[in-house]
């Protein structure tokens, strides 16, 4: 397991993302992700990414839920939005009343990896109290404006609307690394 001192030597930067994770980004295309009860999720929208990636589980167990949108359902309040994931970004509603279908679930344990393309809609759930992953992004980014599944009747806050300080992020990282 990597130590806090080794992490700091990687010369990256840590930030909190409202999906419930502290991200420590380094070397442009790599990031450690730290999940714990000290970094609760304020938004759990299904989403895709700007890049394909491989994620290796360093600690704990992570469950993935994969989704597709085969069409519309007039009774659904879910919608497919497309846009940047930055505070205040305008997003377009690509599919209103979206029929969102769960396509697959799988669990990945410590020591193992999974791979996801940039345009795969997913969300993750931690099956253990603490989870650490190492993400390898495929560069260059394959799209600028990824899709998000949101609920028109119950909009989520922006994932970056409640930032944590650098000090808070490092405290959470240290907590997540500890036994």
């Amino acid at each position, binding site marked *: 397991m990597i130590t806090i001192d080794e992490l700091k030597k990687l010369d990256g930067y840590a930030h909190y993302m409202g999906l419930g994770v502290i991200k420590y980004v380094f070397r442009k295309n790599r990031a450690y992700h730290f999940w714990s009860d000290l970094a609760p999720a304020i938004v759990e929208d299904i989403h895709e990414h700007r890049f394909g990636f491989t994620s290796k589980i360093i600690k704990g167990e992570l469950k*993935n839920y994969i989704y597709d949108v085969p069409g519309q359902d007039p009774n659904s309040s879910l919608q497919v939005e497309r846009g940047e994931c930055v505070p205040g970004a305008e997003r377009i509603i690509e599919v209103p009343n979206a029929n969102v279908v769960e*396509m*697959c679930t799988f669990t990945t344990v410590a020591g193992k*990896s999974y791979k*996801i*393309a940039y345009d*795969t809609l997913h969300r993750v759930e931690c099956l253990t109290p603490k989870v650490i992953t190492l993400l390898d992004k495929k560069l260059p980014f394959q799209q600028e404006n990824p899709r998000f599944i949101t609920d028109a009747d119950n909009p989520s806050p922006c994932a970056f609307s409640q930032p944590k300080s650098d000090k808070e992020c490092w405290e959470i990282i240290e907590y997540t690394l500890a036994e």
Partner: protein
Amino acid sequence: MITIDELRKIAQQNNTVPAWNGLGIVKLRFAPSNSSTGDKSLAYHFYSDRTEANYHPIHDHVFSFSSTILKGTLQSTFYDFAIVDYETDYELRSSSYHYEGFNNEAVHPNIELYEAYKFNTLAGDDYWLDYRALHKVHPVSPNVVTLVNKINQPDLSVVWQQEQFNYIQDKHVPYVNTMFEKIPPDECWDIIEDILEN
């Protein structure tokens, strides 16, 4: 791990024998012990170099299912495609079980295919997938055993969720009906025993 004797007993109770499927699996289909219908909605799947596929297209299913890995490691790769109006290497076809050529028809004659996601499942893990998920599986370890559960009805039976399954045909690879070339049941039992012991 289940034993060969327990498997033979299950086969006897269900009046069935293991069968090889050209996707590279020996399957033993059976009904849950408390089933009122006798519908064979469960199956043990066995993979080894002796069950090698004769044809292994990317495919979906006529029902959603969960799979628990009992031995070894299985890799699942999932795909998406884009329909295009120029000639490509792949087409999406639709087919039904049982009959050579029956309703085997082109759905989209030209598609661009790409990998969507990939994961390994290890002994003790399970995964679930929707009947519409286009995928293929590949044993990563020499011997793999899984328990597949297709139950989607309160009476423990399974109802097909689409009439036909879809598969991706590589236009450079001849089509083979995976249901028709058979390994005799005695040889299937021998393969199963081999997989359980190694």
